[in-house]
């Protein structure tokens, strides 16, 4: 047989080395390309929402710049008049919107914290927001679980749906922790 690196033995040696050397894995057997955050079955073009070579997800809709009539660009005229963002002033609908539209962003955490304040809880397994139906105490309540009627927020249909549910407390997320600083309306700096 060919005994150098250019035959079957050479291939075998490389495969064996790649099993223990993580630096080699990217070359052999290569990377599972379906895990790179691109929807390869999409009927739409991928480039138009391509965020970055280092991003695991496409652009969020709000991040895609588009040339709009300059009349629409009103921020410069009204920014000093805009109220600062205070989530406790906003309705649930907007909070859910902020939560679902700002994945990986501090705003998602902030919205989650405000929803928590309003007695919504995030179910870690079901991956859904849930709250007790008002005026309806749980039928069964123990130290570890309860059973009753709850409102689930259905993000697909964008509405609250009442359901009977067996709720285990350890599946609920604790109060979200916000990083120490939360920046909105950063003031523009002069040169």
């Amino acid at each position, binding site marked *: 047989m060919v005994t150098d690196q250019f035959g079957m033995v050479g291939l075998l040696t490389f495969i064996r080395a790649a099993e223990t050397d993580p630096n080699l894995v990217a070359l052999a057997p290569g990377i599972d390309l379906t895990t790179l*955050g691109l929807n390869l079955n999409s009927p739409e073009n991928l480039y138009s929402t391509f965020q970055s070579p280092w991003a695991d997800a496409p652009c969020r809709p709000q991040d895609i710049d588009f040339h709009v009539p300059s009349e629409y660009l009103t921020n410069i005229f009204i920014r000093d008049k805009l109220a600062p963002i205070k989530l406790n002033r906003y309705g649930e609908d907007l909070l859910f919107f902020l939560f679902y539209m700002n994945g990986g962003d501090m705003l998602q955490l902030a919205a989650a914290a405000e929803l928590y304040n309003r007695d919504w809880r995030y179910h870690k397994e079901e991956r859904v927001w849930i709250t007790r139906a008002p005026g309806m105490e749980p039928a069964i309540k123990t130290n570890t679980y309860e059973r009753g009627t709850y409102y689930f927020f259905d993000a697909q249909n964008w509405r609250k749906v009442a359901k009977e549910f067996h709720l285990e407390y350890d599946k609920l997320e604790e109060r979200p922790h916000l990083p120490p600083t939360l*920046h909105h309306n950063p003031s523009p700096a002069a040169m």
Partner: protein
Amino acid sequence: FDDPPGLHEKTEFLLREWVNMYHSPAAGRDSTKAFSAFVQQMHQQGILKTDDLITRFFRLCTEMCVDLCYRALSEQSSPTLIRAKCFHTLDAFVRLIALLVKHSGDSANTVTKINLLNKVLGIVAGVLLQDHEVRGTDFQQLPYHRIFIMLFIELNAPEHVLESINFQVLTAFCNTFHILRPAKAPGFAFAWLELISHRVFIGRMLAITPQQRGWSMYAQLLSDLFKFLAPFLRNANLDKPTQLLYKGTLRVLLVLLHDFPEFLCDFHYAFCDVIPPNCIQMRNLILSAFPRNMRLPDPFTPNLKVDMLPEIAMPPRIMTNFAKMIQPKGFKNDMDSYLTSRSPVTFLSELRSSLQISSEPGNRYNIPLINALVLYVGTQAITFIHSKGLQPSMSTIAHSSHMDIFQNLAVDLDTEGRYLFLNAIANQLRYPNSHTHYFSCTLLYLFAEANSEAIQEQITRVLLERLIVNRPHPWGLLITFIELIKNPSFKFWNHDFVHCAPEIEKLFESVARSCM
């Protein structure tokens, strides 16, 4: 050197003025009101008097913007605040450049506009390269990245005056990005890849520009990227930064494979020339591309009659003049003579030495020459066969001057040269077309007619290593391997190298199971 006295102060004053004017509500639509007033100030300060002064003005502005960013980046502050500070000045500077370009000369004069753009891009690139060299590992990509991308977006706005110069704008940016390619500015490489993979850039280069006029420029940029990665990938040296750049490259290639497969098809040869032989998955990505209007028959279809497919009569488009890459001219002439008349007889015996360039390990063979020779001889063979009213097949490809060359190379080259030669053949196994079919037959013919098991082993090695990496796999690779293992005439399973180690046996069984 030798900036006129006072120019630095004037430039700083003007830049501050402009930044304030840009951010003022009174700037007007697209800053046009502010711009009219500002141009007057530039005239008053004498900045627009000569080409030299304009050049120095832009250079100083660029340096001031960059210095501001370095100061901001050194502050102990959140990335969001730092960026706000930097972009406050950078975006204003970019708007000034865009307005000066748009309004340079009269509206019909595109030459002055593009000349100014090229000047500014050259200045920014020059400042970058100098900064990169001087600061070394302290170099920051941010200011340059921001200037280039925002300027590109501004100059691709849907405005009539910009649409009329759009192709020249694209050319100017591509030239600049080529100058700043990773091999020249490795500290800028990550930002560089962000720039060339930006959705607006890809859209303009590959989708919107008519008649695919942007394709060859974009292919050049991708080649620049592959050439940079090549030494590290060849050495399987994938530390974290290199892995990240490699993974980013794969993401971009996936987008291109999904959205612009014809682009990858057209330039596959140029890309395979610069991708190292051990970069199998990346190469497979490119070779797996096929035209969107084509429906590929399932390679696992029982009794698939590949030679009955109508597509195999069609040659693929190859945008590289590979014949020109067969150098020196004398060698090409000898080869053409041999292909026509099988003379001079010494051509075959001298062929190996013509492909060797040094005795340096890892650099002994002229890989681009091998690739060019294989494709050239193969395409000449296809033309010859067609001229006789025939189609390539295991019988028609045999006993020809073309096959003499291929068989001679298979026998005469050492293991390294043979591996590179077989790789060159396997690089043509793509979607159904005349090249895929011819080279598939050639590889199988070389296997069947091999006078040593080493040749068969190496053919198997070249095919197998392309199959065991994660998907995608080119259609032509699959049908060739399936034929090799299914057709009893090749006696594939009788060979010792198939059973040389448990992992190899398992690999073959696993691949065969998925094939059959």
